[in-house]
């Protein structure tokens, strides 16, 4: 049986073998539409590849590592990353490669092509998989084409594809992928057209850019947009963008360039051409019976249809599930560069200023009512920064992912996380804080009388140590804020003293990452590229590093704002205590505000932390999460439920927590291993664990309920397994 056939030979009964995209194009080609010449690789080739190479069960083991519903988006990305690496590490067996090679060679010997996904079920009217799988533009040469066929196969297991298949109830075990190899049409103008506007059913939408439409599809190039009356084709509105860039073919792949000035002032389409494209959408809709979303390009006045799929709205099944939102965070390089500029140039400095400005404020002169207003104002400020954290900082984490994928595609390392070693440069804010602690601990280690006075919670303010401690607290706080869900800041200096004594009782922990290894990896990565591409690779690495640093630092900066909110609350609490109106701990700022404003109001106090009842009958013995820091560790667990758990931390214990909050990283050097409820390789805790070379497993939702302080636990950071008892 042939594994690859020309597009026009695809028949009705072959639909399952070729996927919706290839099948639609075959129909359009048959009715005489202008469709680029193409070959289609059957799903059978994919199946043979994964079976023959033993990948099938490896993929399913990875996907079934844990209950899918319990997986966070970061864990899904990790699973996708590991699966993609399996594909990158597995050559196409020679029998299959042979069967594909000669038809490709014959048809596309010297021609550049686009390698597109065409998954069965992908473009049906119930399931729009638009953009979930990869397409590669401007690929030349049989071997390079085969290489990209493999990458398109791998994209069947992208994080987004995994989530959507699950949402639609498609059977992951039966997933397969066909691939379309289409001759590239280097159009001068390109775009997409929606036969029916998803936001207004009476309209059609046509979008157009200069150059290739890759820039439009990934959001890098803003298009001209025309809204048309769907019934008459009359143009209702033309939305003109700031035309600055265009995407063109160059060497291998595509390149974004500044748009020549004379084109920037002229819309890419004339009114006649807009009407012509509208006509195309109507014709395609007639053929398929439903409104279509088509990609087109214009070359020397010939209009080509590149792909067509039914328009679908996303199902509402995922209401309340935040994961689909995260998946929309995939950003292009250009978009991330702009985001970085905004974060580093505006947001972080503004955040630092805001925190400092708040810190300078003197509230001793404020009345209780004014203090209540101040607490409310600080809550607003904090809320505003939390919103920015979600809208700007979290999406910027994609910089690491973008670099990671690029690194794995080019270097093909055995360890899919090797790229993290290049990103870690040891300049994280929380590591800086840990160094500060270590400096103080070493003073305690060498000075017995200092150690004795710390045991009695005393320090001499004038001495070197006292000054150092003041400076540390001014810079980083007293380490007692922000543990768990509640805001608690009541430990004072005693907590730090206990921690320093514990640190001083043991030799200092060392950061694992050797600068020389980072240098070596960096150099061997950059050496792979020719001059022109090296610039891009180096820029991408720099972006990845910025993203990595920010993943840690943003929390610290946000922590400073939070500290100012908490400081105002502490003042309110102090006043209410003085008036004898608080019994117990009031942690809800709204309660404090209410009590400060109305002298008769008695604020509600915090309920004690609920201990999760462990059923004596049922116990977890071994739980699988995500491997997030290689190595193996055994030790007694210290489960962190409140700040006192943290400050009682003993050297050699296993840190068990919801997530290693940036404000708790100071115990990481003391810990032998880390177990986190939150999952993922790129989360803060995993980053810090990797910096110190500490075995770490993330994504164990049962960790804090099934493990109790004192339990013996084993952390297998290679396989992502936690064993209790």
């Amino acid at each position, binding site marked *: 049986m042939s594994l690859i056939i020309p597009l026009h030979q695809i028949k009705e009964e072959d639909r399952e073998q070729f996927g919706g995209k290839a099948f639609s194009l075959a129909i359009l080609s048959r009715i005489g539409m202008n469709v680029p010449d193409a070959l289609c690789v059957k799903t059978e080739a994919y199946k043979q590849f994964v079976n023959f190479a033993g990948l099938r069960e490896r993929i399913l083991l990875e996907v079934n590592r844990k209950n899918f519903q319990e997986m966070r988006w970061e864990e899904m990305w990790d699973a996708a990353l590991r699966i993609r690496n399996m594909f990158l590490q597995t050559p196409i067996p020679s029998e299959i490669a042979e069967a594909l090679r000669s038809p490709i060679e014959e048809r596309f010997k010297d021609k550049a092509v686009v390698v597109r996904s065409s998954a069965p079920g992908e473009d049906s009217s119930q399931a729009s998989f638009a953009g979930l799988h990869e397409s590669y533009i401007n690929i030349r040469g049989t071997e390079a084409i085969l290489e990209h066929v493999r990458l398109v196969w791998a994209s069947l297991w992208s994080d987004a594809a995994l989530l959507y298949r699950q949402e639609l109830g498609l059977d992951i075990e039966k997933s397969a992928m066909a691939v379309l190899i289409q001759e590239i049409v280097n159009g001068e103008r390109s775009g997409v057209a929606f036969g029916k506007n998803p936001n207004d059913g009476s309209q059609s939408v046509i979008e157009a850019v200069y150059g290739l439409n890759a820039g439009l599809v990934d959001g890098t190039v803003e298009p001209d947009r025309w809204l048309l009356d769907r019934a008459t084709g009359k143009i209702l509105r033309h939305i003109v963008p700031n035309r600055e860039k265009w995407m063109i073919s160059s060497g291998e792949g595509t390149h974004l360039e500044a748009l020549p000035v004379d084109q920037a002032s002229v819309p890419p389409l004339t009114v006649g051409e807009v009407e012509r494209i509208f006509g195309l959408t109507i014709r395609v809709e007639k053929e398929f019976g439903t409104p279509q979303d088509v990609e087109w390009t214009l070359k020397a006045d010939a209009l080509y249809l590149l792909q067509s799929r039914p328009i679908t709205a996303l199902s509402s099944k995922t209401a309340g599930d935040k994961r689909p939102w995260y998946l929309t965070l995939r950003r292009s390089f250009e978009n991330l560069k702009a985001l970085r500029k905004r974060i580093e140039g505006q947001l972080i400095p503004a955040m630092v200023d805001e925190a400092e400005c708040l810190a300078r404020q003197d509230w001793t002169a404020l009345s209780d009512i004014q203090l209540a207003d101040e607490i409310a104002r600080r809550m607003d400020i904090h809320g505003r920064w939390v919103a920015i954290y979600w809208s700007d900082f979290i999406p910027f984490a994609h910089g690491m992912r973008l670099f990671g994928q690029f690194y794995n595609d080019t270097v093909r390392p055995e360890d899919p996380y090797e790229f993290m070693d290049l990103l870690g440069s040891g300049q994280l804010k929380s590591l800086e804080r840990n160094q500060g602690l270590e400096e103080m601990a070493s003073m305690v280690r060498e000075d017995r009388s200092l150690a004795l006075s710390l045991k009695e919670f005393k320090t001499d303010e004038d001495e070197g140590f006292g000054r150092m401690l003041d400076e540390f607290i001014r810079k980083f706080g007293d380490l007692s804020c922000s543990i768990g869900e509640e805001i608690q800041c009541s430990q004072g200096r005693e907590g730090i003293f206990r921690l320093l004594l514990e640190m001083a009782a043991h030799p200092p922990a060392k950061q694992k990452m050797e600068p020389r290894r980072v240098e070596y990896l960096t150099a061997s990565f950059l050496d792979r590229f020719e001059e022109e591409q090296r610039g891009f690779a180096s820029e991408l690495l720099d972006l990845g590093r910025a993203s990595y640093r920010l993943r840690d630092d943003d929390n610290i900066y946000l922590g400073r704002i939070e500290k100012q909110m908490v400081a105002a609350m502490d003042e309110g609490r102090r006043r209410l205590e003085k008036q004898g109106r608080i019994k117990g701990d009031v942690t809800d700022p709204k309660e404090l505000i209410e009590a400060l404003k109305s002298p008769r109001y008695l604020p509600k106090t915090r309920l004690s932390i609920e201990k999760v009842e462990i059923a004596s009958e*049922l116990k977890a013995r071994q739980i699988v999460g995500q491997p997030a820091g290689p190595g193996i560790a055994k030790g007694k667990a210290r489960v962190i439920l409140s700040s006192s758990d943290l400050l009682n931390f003993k050297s050699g214990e296993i840190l068990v927590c919801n997530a290693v909050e940036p404000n708790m990283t100071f115990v990481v050097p003391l810990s032998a291993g880390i177990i986190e409820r939150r999952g993922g390789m790129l989360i803060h805790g995993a980053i810090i664990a990797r910096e110190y070379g500490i075995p770490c497993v993330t994504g164990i939702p049962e960790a804090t309920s099934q493990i109790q302080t004192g339990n013996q636990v084993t952390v297998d950071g290679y396989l992502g397994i936690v064993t209790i008892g």
Partner: protein
Amino acid sequence: MEKTSQLKKFLKDLFSSQRLAVLATQSKRQPYGNLVAFMATDDLKHLLFATTRATRKYANISKNPRVAMVMDNRSNQEADFHQAAAVTATGVVKEVEGSEKEPLLRLYLSKHPYLKDFVSSPTCALLKMNVETYYVVRQFQNVMELHIKK
């Protein structure tokens, strides 16, 4: 996390879908394993199986009644690695005698009617394992322990 009732239902379904289990006994510090036709009681407290008294397993149990039994739903396909579940039960075995024998034998034969002649023989013993713990392995590496109350 999974509730005890959910896990118990899972075990009941698994046990009713399987006929054979691996029984592990030991003698003089030498472990020994063999297949038995098993049946679980509805409360999951006991696992029943039958053997003639001349067998090695019977001799082993007579000397040391502590045993382990493994039940699983593998299909001997590659997919087992992510799909199959395996359960190890540990506990103590006793031979069923007296008034208890008749109802338990009926129960046992309701699952294994083809063993009627075998278990009716005077040389055959019906054995009852009092389960102390079930170790349930799923998704390749996830292990839960269910401790059975006496």
